[in-house]
């Protein structure tokens, strides 16, 4: 769960940066390809915002067992 969450957000941001770079590298826009990129980017933005939206933290206290060291 932890790993998956981290990977998703990390990968989303990485892919978003790639899409931005792709647009910035186009001197003449390929409209079809651009539209695909916009759709993918929008989905990544939505997923990332969902993850970054306020999610309550879970607080758990673990009692220390004072065993002899």
């Amino acid at each position: 769960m932890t790993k998956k969450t981290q990977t998703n957000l990390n990968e989303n941001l990485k892919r978003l940066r790639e899409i931005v770079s792709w647009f910035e590298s186009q001197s003449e826009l390929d409209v079809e390809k651009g539209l695909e990129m916009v759709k993918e980017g929008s989905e990544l933005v939505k997923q990332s915002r969902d993850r970054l939206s306020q999610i309550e933290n879970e607080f758990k206290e673990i009692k220390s067992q004072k065993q002899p060291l």
Partner: protein
Amino acid sequence: MENIFSVSEYLDRLNATLKGEKAKVLGEVSGVQEYPGRSYLYFSLKDKKDGSTVKCFMWKNDYKLSGVALTDGLEIIVSAYPNIYKPNGGMSLQVESVELVGEGALKIAYEKLKGKLASEGLFDEARKRHLPDFPRVVGVITSKNGAVINDFLSNIGKFGYEILFVDSKVEGQDAVRDLLSALRILYVEKVDVLVLMRGGGSLESFQAFNNEEVVRAISKFNAPTLTGIGHDKDVPLCALVSDANVSTPTAVAHLLSHGFEEAGATVAISEEKILSAFSGGLRDRQFVLENSGALIEKRFGELFETFKRAEASLQNALGQIDLRITRLGEIISESSKNIFREFENLSARVGEKISQMQKTLELGSPERQLARGYSIVRHAGKIVRNKKDVRVGEQLDILLSDGKIESRVTKIATKI
């Protein structure tokens, strides 16, 4: 009837009661007996003022945890309770921990341990691990009493963290056991990041955070470590060994949530850039489409113009070719006439030449010369031109205009 105890029973009862008399006792160390190979050691604690002395027993595990090297004359505080040793009835203090007394002694011990750990590379930058950008399971060790944990929780943000909290003493030497126990618990939990915090204080109050065992446990922790340990002058060794250190719990919280905050900004900027680039690209395409009609018309106009020019050029070329053909016909006709005339002249000249040659031939012919009285003398078929061509007695054939005479040489004269 009153209870009657055996000696052993009574000593057990006393020891149970004495265990409740745990106290911190200040005194000078003397007569340290470490007994190599055994699991315990003895020393005496002496009152500096009147020389009162009490014998102390300590397990070597506890001694190691204390991180204080006992030497004669060293002033220390022990946490201990009294105990009567049943085989001989002697009373001693059962020491649980030892701590140094006074800033001077603490400072010396701090510097010594710092040098030792530094020489082992424990504080090297190369060992520092990168804190996760998006931690989810956060292990937290601090005291549940006090403002530290509240400050941390108030500033961490709401990013769906799972915070695993272990309460621990953070003051004095007693905190060593708690900290080591908490580190062990969270090691098993496999957290994404470990946070260890306490507020500021004197060097004395930081003893547990300068403890060798605690420092080593942090260095070996199975996740990146982040400390938020306030300090006065000397940075606690736990803060030096951790992967990242800040001075307040609020700063710890911000450091952990930094990745999430930055991700939010990255998402917003990326979204803006993508949409801006795409709409800009579309505008460019629209402009191209709007201008393509005029462009096509212009291109066709140019094409027609080129075609017209080519047609005119072709017409002109055809006229030129016609003219050339007519001229060529004239030249051919003229040339024919000239050739005919030249041929006639040439024929006349050749006729004259032939006539002249005929006359010359007629004049020089042998028949004509024979008719005029000349003759041709031959010997053996060859014409005789000189006297040496013949010898006396040889036959000669003399050719005349009307016949031949055969004769013989009778004499050859030199002169006629």
